[in-house]
């Protein structure tokens, strides 16, 4: 049993054993006597990357490239290849990821299993939208090539399928051409939520990368104030200026108690919003700090102390998006359980092939809360109600507590998805949310 393989949020804590996979040509799943779950870099916050009393198939050593087409940018690689590896190898050659989440410490397999999204969702959709093909190893030894032409259903079930349909051994997707490692970025202060929606609307056409930070402790006329960040890759021809992110600062151990509590979060929010004096700041920024600001601190999750924390991300349709986000910020503000990094963004209408894909057209808010006990769970259950009644959904990759009832409501294709789960595969998340159906 291995204690090192917890989830990024550190809640819940489980006990499981780990099997490292070293070579694609030498994987044996048939000799395993407990349920298995593929595991990448463990950046999922909740229990979707955990398999209590079971086995994790550690793919982080399956990290070889297989082929690359310099003309089209089509890359095929093993599923444990990390986004960091792709950036360091391909940015100097003028290629970048089609979609990236806010950390580069994710694997290709994990990016598919969670169908991750990024700052360019409104123009590029999810990562799964760019995957052309992958190989799925099932526990009966079958190796299935899945694409939009072959094994179409498994293709749809596996993208966003939380690692439950089998082991993705390799995948193929297209990189995008860039001529610079820099982003021409603008940061605009917005005084309230209303203005966020206006800024989003007016920016989506001209800016490929958009994200906002919100101060979620405000409940008066400045409710939803924050910083709107938008940018595009610079078009200057200076790709040779790329530098891999070097030594990362690491917290040597968990903070004794959560450093992020309602007091520190309040101070942080005041400083963060207040540090920018003018309405707009423009900046030519290297892609690492622009896309991955938190990666500079390699284990920022330890700031929350040993009890860990919970993430909560939902999406609701745009029509009533303003009211729902407002209501949720009010509920949080009232609870005095401030979220340290609150991220707000609108999703576009590009549909993912993934059946359990989280993003859909609307507005999404991501929050984090130190795990302080039942009061947090109570607050999140309350937020679930608001989201469920507004035709929204909650992101499984960040969840450790949503009910089975809500899961099936959020994901109407979940019942069909069940038919494609590999009988040997399971996860703590799945056993929790599928309780009622079994």
């Amino acid at each position: 049993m291995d204690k090192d393989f917890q989830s990024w949020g550190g809640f819940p804590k489980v006990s499981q054993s780990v099997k490292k996979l070293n070579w694609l040509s030498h994987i044996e799943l048939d000799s395993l006597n407990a349920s298995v779950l593929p595991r990448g870099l463990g950046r999922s916050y909740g229990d979707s990357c955990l398999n209590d009393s079971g086995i994790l198939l550690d793919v982080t050593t399956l990290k070889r490239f297989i082929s690359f087409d310099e003309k089209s940018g089509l890359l095929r690689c093993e599923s444990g290849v990390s986004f960091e590896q792709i950036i360091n190898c391909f940015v100097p050659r003028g290629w970048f990821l089609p979609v990236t989440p806010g950390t580069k410490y994710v694997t290709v397999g994990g990016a598919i299993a969670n169908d991750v999204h990024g700052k360019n969702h409104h123009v590029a959709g999810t990562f799964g939208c760019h995957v052309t093909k992958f190989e799925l190893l099932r526990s009966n030894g079958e190796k299935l090539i899945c694409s939009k032409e072959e094994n179409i259903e498994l293709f749809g079930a596996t993208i966003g399928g939380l690692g439950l349909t089998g082991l993705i051994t390799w995948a193929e997707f297209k990189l995008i051409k860039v001529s610079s490692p820099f982003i021409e970025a603008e940061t605009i202060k917005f005084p309230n939520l209303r203005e966020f929606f206006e800024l989003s609307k007016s920016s989506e056409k001209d800016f490929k990368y958009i994200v906002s930070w919100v101060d979620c402790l405000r409940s008066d006329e400045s409710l939803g104030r924050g910083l709107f960040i938008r940018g595009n890759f610079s078009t200057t021809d200076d790709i040779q200026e790329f530098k891999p992110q070097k030594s990362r600062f690491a917290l040597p151990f968990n903070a004794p108690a959560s450093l992020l509590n309602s007091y520190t979060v309040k101070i942080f929010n005041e400083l963060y919003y207040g540090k920018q004096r003018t309405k707009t700041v423009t900046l030519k920024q290297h892609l690492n700090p622009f896309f991955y600001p938190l990666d500079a601190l390699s284990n920022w999750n330890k700031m929350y102390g040993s009890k860990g924390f919970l993430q909560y991300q939902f999406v609701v349709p745009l029509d009533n998006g303003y009211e729902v986000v407002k209501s949720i910020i009010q509920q949080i503000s009232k609870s005095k359980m401030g979220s340290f990094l609150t991220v707000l963004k609108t999703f576009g209408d590009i549909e993912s092939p993934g059946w359990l894909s989280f993003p859909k057209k609307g507005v999404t808010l991501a929050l984090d809360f130190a795990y302080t006990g039942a009061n947090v769970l109570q607050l999140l259950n309350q937020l679930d109600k608001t989201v469920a009644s507004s035709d929204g959904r909650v992101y499984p990759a960040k969840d450790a507590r949503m009910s089975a009832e809500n899961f099936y409501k959020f994901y109407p294709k979940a019942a069909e998805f069940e038919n494609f789960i590999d009988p040997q595969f399971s996860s703590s998340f799945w056993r929790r949310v599928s309780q009622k159906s079994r």
Partner: protein
Amino acid sequence: VTAKNVMIIGATSAIAQSVAHCFAKNGNKIFLVARDNGKLKAVEDDLVVRGAKVESFVCDISETYKHHELLIAAKEFLPSFDVILIAHGVLGDESESQVSYETAKKILEVNFLSVVSLLIELTKTFEAQRSGCIAVIGSVAGDRGRQSNYIYGTGKGALEIFLQGLRNRLYKSGITVITIKPGFVDTPMTSHLKKGLLFVSPEKVGKEIYQAISKQKEIVYVPRFWLLIMLVIKSIPEKIFKRLSL
């Protein structure tokens, strides 16, 4: 930067792969040797994507009668040998090898005698080309015999003496001979061992080996703190050492 010609024996080892990544950047030519075809193909593809020109040769290196054929194939692909990295090796079943001559012999054949055979064949080529670098992965286990791994340690220690002599002989021809002594590295070879603080990643070890080759070092401990650890271990008088359970 001119392109380099590199040969790597034991190319599927985790350490060899990370050294190869460092060489795969500048259009270098790399000739790979390993015994498992499937693994070798995976390593070859990876290095090609990273920008190297690669050819590989499947061979169980303990079958020394194949070395001649191997080197002919290598010479056909590589116009010269700028760098040779010998990275193959087995940990073996130490307790079995301490009671069974056959097991001990097999470990010594793989870890020591195969290198002797290869380098005897290659020395003339190096002397003729009057440049290049021979880097061989030894081990801190070769620095002092201990009850927990002295068969493995014997092979690595013998290797060190052999390389010392070769370094001495090839010095006047301008050839660099490097003995690399890794400590504990987190690789498939050590997957059964409990990982303590002294374990480092093969990526880190690979980078340090690449730097040692670039800087033409002679004997390198990777990571460097092993130099201190082994200085202490080597300085303990035998009278005391024999009583320790190491």
